[in-house]
C-alpha cells in the first residue's frame, strides 16, 4: 500500500463573488522512503498542495473535494484536534526561509522541546536529550550550546539544519520541504540538499520536495511532478522528465534554464505569463503560451495519459501516442543536445545546483 495517496484533490479559494479553483484533479501517490518533487512556476499551486496535505491552507482556501490517504487513513475528514497529531508527528514540514521560520523570541531548545512534548509523554529532560541528539544528527557542532541559543544567533544554513532537526524529532513518515534551499546561499544549498537526502535515506522518511529549480530537483527526487496553473501536466521518473520531457511546458521549463542558453545570448524563456486563478483560459491552460497549440487545445482539457514511462496531459502527446507504431518520436528538435544529460553534467561539475 502506498504511504500517501492523493486522489482527485480539488482546492478552491472562496472569495466574496467567486469560488476560484487553485488545484484541479490532483492525483499522485508516494511510497515509503520515496523522494518526489513538485516543480512549476510561482502560482502553479505547488505550495498550496503541500499545505493541503496537512490541511493548513490559509483562508479563504479550502479542500473542495478529493481524498488524501495516509497509510490508508483518510486525512481530509479528520477534526482539527486529530489533524494536530498528524502534523509534525507523521508529516513534518520545512519552509522556505529559515530566517523567518523560527520564532525569534524563543530559544532553539524551547522550540524543539515543545514539539516533542506536544506529541509524546516524554519528560523535559528526556525531550532535551532527544532534541540534542537530533541536532547532532543534522551535523550541528556543539549541539548543547546551540540548544540554548536564540535563532538570531545562528546563520541561515544553521537555522535550516535546526528546522530539519525539528522535522525529524518525531520520526515522521513524510517530510514536506517547500523550497528548502531557495533562501540560502548557493554554497549552503548543496550541503542542505545532501543533508536532506541522507537524512531521508537513513530514517526511511519519504520526501515531498517543492521547488521551482529543476537543478535542485534532479539531485534529490526520484520522481518529478510538473504543475501548471493548478494542474499536474506531467509526472514521471526524474531522469525521464529531464532527458525526454513530453509536455511542451516541461520542455519550456528545461529550455529556460540558464545552462541551456548560448553564452552572450538572451536567456530562453516561455513567452507570456501563467494565467491567474480568475482568468484561466478554456481548454488546456497552457494553450496561450504553447508553441504547438492546436484548435482542440482551446476547447478541451486533455486527460492525463500514461505512455509507459510518464503521465502526460497534452493533446499533442496523445496524438503522437495514437500515431506511434514503429518509429520512435522525438520532441527535442531544436532544443539542443540531450537536455537532461547536459543539465546533470553541468550540475555535477559545478556542484552548486
Amino acid at each position, binding site marked *: 500500500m502506498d504511504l500517501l495517496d492523493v486522489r482527485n484533490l480539488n482546492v478552491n479559494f472562496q472569495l466574496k463573488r467567486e469560488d476560484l479553483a487553485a488545484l484541479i484533479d490532483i492525483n499522485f501517490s508516494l511510497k515509503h522512503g520515496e523522494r518526489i518533487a513538485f516543480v512549476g512556476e510561482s502560482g502553479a499551486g505547488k505550495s498550496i498542495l503541500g499545505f493541503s496535505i496537512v490541511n493548513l491552507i490559509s483562508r479563504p482556501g479550502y479542500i473542495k473535494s478529493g481524498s488524501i490517504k495516509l497509510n490508508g487513513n483518510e486525512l481530509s475528514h479528520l477534526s482539527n484536534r486529530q489533524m*494536530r497529531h498528524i*502534523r*509534525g508527528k507523521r508529516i513534518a514540514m520545512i519552509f522556505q526561509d529559515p530566517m*523567518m*521560520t523560527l520564532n525569534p523570541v524563543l530559544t532553539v531548545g524551547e522550540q524543539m522541546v*515543545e514539539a516533542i512534548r506536544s506529541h509524546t509523554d516524554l519528560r523535559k529532560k528526556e525531550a532535551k536529550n532527544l532534541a540534542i541528539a537530533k541536532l547532532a544528527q543534522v551535523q550541528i557542532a556543539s549541539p548543547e550550546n546551540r540548544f540554548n541559543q536564540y535563532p*538570531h544567533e545562528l546563520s541561515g544554513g544553521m537555522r535550516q539544519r535546526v528546522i530539519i532537526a525539528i522535522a525529524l524529532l518525531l520520526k515522521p513518515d513524510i517530510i514536506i520541504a517547500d523550497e528548502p534551499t531557495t533562501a540560502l546561499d548557493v554554497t549552503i544549498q548543496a550541503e542542505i540538499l545532501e543533508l536532506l537526502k541522507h537524512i531521508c535515506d537513513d530514517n526511511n522518511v519519504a520526501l515531498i520536495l517543492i521547488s521551482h529549480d529543476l537543478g535542485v530537483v534532479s539531485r534529490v527526487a526520484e520522481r518529478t511532478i510538473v504543475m501548471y496553473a493548478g494542474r499536474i501536466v506531467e509526472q514521471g521518473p526524474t531522469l525521464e522528465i529531464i532527458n525526454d520531457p513530453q509536455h511542451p511546458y516541461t520542455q519550456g521549463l528545461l529550455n529556460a534554464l540558464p545552462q541551456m542558453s548560448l553564452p552572450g545570448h538572451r536567456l530562453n524563456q516561455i513567452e507570456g505569463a501563467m494565467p491567474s486563478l480568475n482568468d484561466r483560459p478554456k481548454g488546456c491552460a497552457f494553450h496561450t503560451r504553447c508553441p504547438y497549440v492546436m484548435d482542440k487545445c482551446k476547447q478541451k482539457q486533455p486527460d492525463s495519459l500514461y505512455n509507459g514511462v510518464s503521465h502526460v496531459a497534452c493533446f499533442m502527446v496523445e496524438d503522437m501516442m495514437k500515431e506511434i507504431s514503429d518509429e520512435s518520436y522525438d520532441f527535442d528538435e531544436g532544443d539542443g543536445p540531450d537536455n537532461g544529460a547536459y543539465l546533470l553534467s553541468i550540475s555535477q561539475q559545478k556542484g552548486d545546483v
Partner: protein
Amino acid sequence: MFRFLIRRFIQALIVMIVISIISFLVQGRLGDPVHQMVGQSVTLEERKQIRDELGLNDSLFDQYIRFAKKAVRGDLGVSYYYKEPALDVILRKLPATLELSFSAIVLIIIIAIPCGVIAAIKPKSILARTLMFFSTIGLSVPIFIIAIFLVYFFSVEWQIAPSFGRGETEVIFSFWETGFTTWDGIKHLFLPSLSLALALMPLFVRLIRSEMMEVLQSEYIKFAWAKGLSPMRIYFIHALKNTLLPIITVAGIQTGTLVAYTILTETIFQWPGMGFLFWDAISRVDTPLISAYLMVVGAMFVITNTLVDLIYGLVNPTVRLSSHGL
C-alpha cells in the same frame, strides 16, 4: 548594561533640564508673584522692595541658575496656599496617584490583552466585532463623560461603589499612605481606577489586535501550526510574546497620557492625589506648586521610560543592551 544606564542617565539629565526651564518660566511668568503674595494695602514702593529682595529684577539667566541650584537640593519653592515646601506637598499626595495609576495599569493589562488576543484570533466573530465596536466608542468618548456615567450607574443607581475620596487609608512604612490594605479603600479605588483604565484600554485593545493579526500571518506561526502545537500554545506563547514587543514601547510613551488622565480622573472623583492638587494649584495660581508638579511628573516619566526600555531588552532576545549600548 552599564553603558546603557550611563547613556540613559545623561538623556534623563537633559530632559530634566528642559523640564526645569519650563517649570522656572511657569513660576516666574504666570502672573505676578508679588501680586500673589501681598495684600491690597501694600504700597508700590513696598512691592518694589519685595521685588528686589526676591531677586525678580535680576536677569532671567541669573534667576534660572538660582532656581536650578535650589531645585537640585530639592527646594522647589514654598506653596503660596499651603505655606509649606511645594515638593513636600506634592510627595505627600504621590502615593494616592501612584496607587490609582497602578490599579488602572493592572486593569488594562488583565482586560486589554485577552480582549485584543480574542479580537485578533477570530476577527469576524460576534465577540470580536462587539469588542471593536466598544473600543471605537471608548476611543472617541472623552473620559469625563465615561466617568460621569460610571458614577451615575455604580454610585447613584446601584449604590455599590462610592463616588469620591479615598476612603479609609493606613500609613505603611511610616511614609506611604495606602488604600490597598482596607476594604473601604479598595471600594473607593474601584470607580476611579476603572475610568482611568477605560480611558487607555481601547487604544491597547486595538493595538494588540492589529499587532497580533500581523504576527499570526508570519512564517514562524505557520511553522508552529505545522509542528502540530496546541492553539493555546501558538496564540499565547508564540504569537503573544512577539505581539507585546512593540506594545511595551507604546506603553512607555503612554505613561504621559496616563498622567494627564489622572488629573481629570482625580478631579472628577475628588481623589486626593497629585492631579487633583495640580488642578487646585492652577485655580489658585499657586505657581511653586505647579512647577513642582511639572518637575515630579517629568522625573516619573523619565524613570518609567528607562524601566520600559530595560524590560524591552529583557523580553526581546535580539536586543543586547550592553552590545548595542542603547
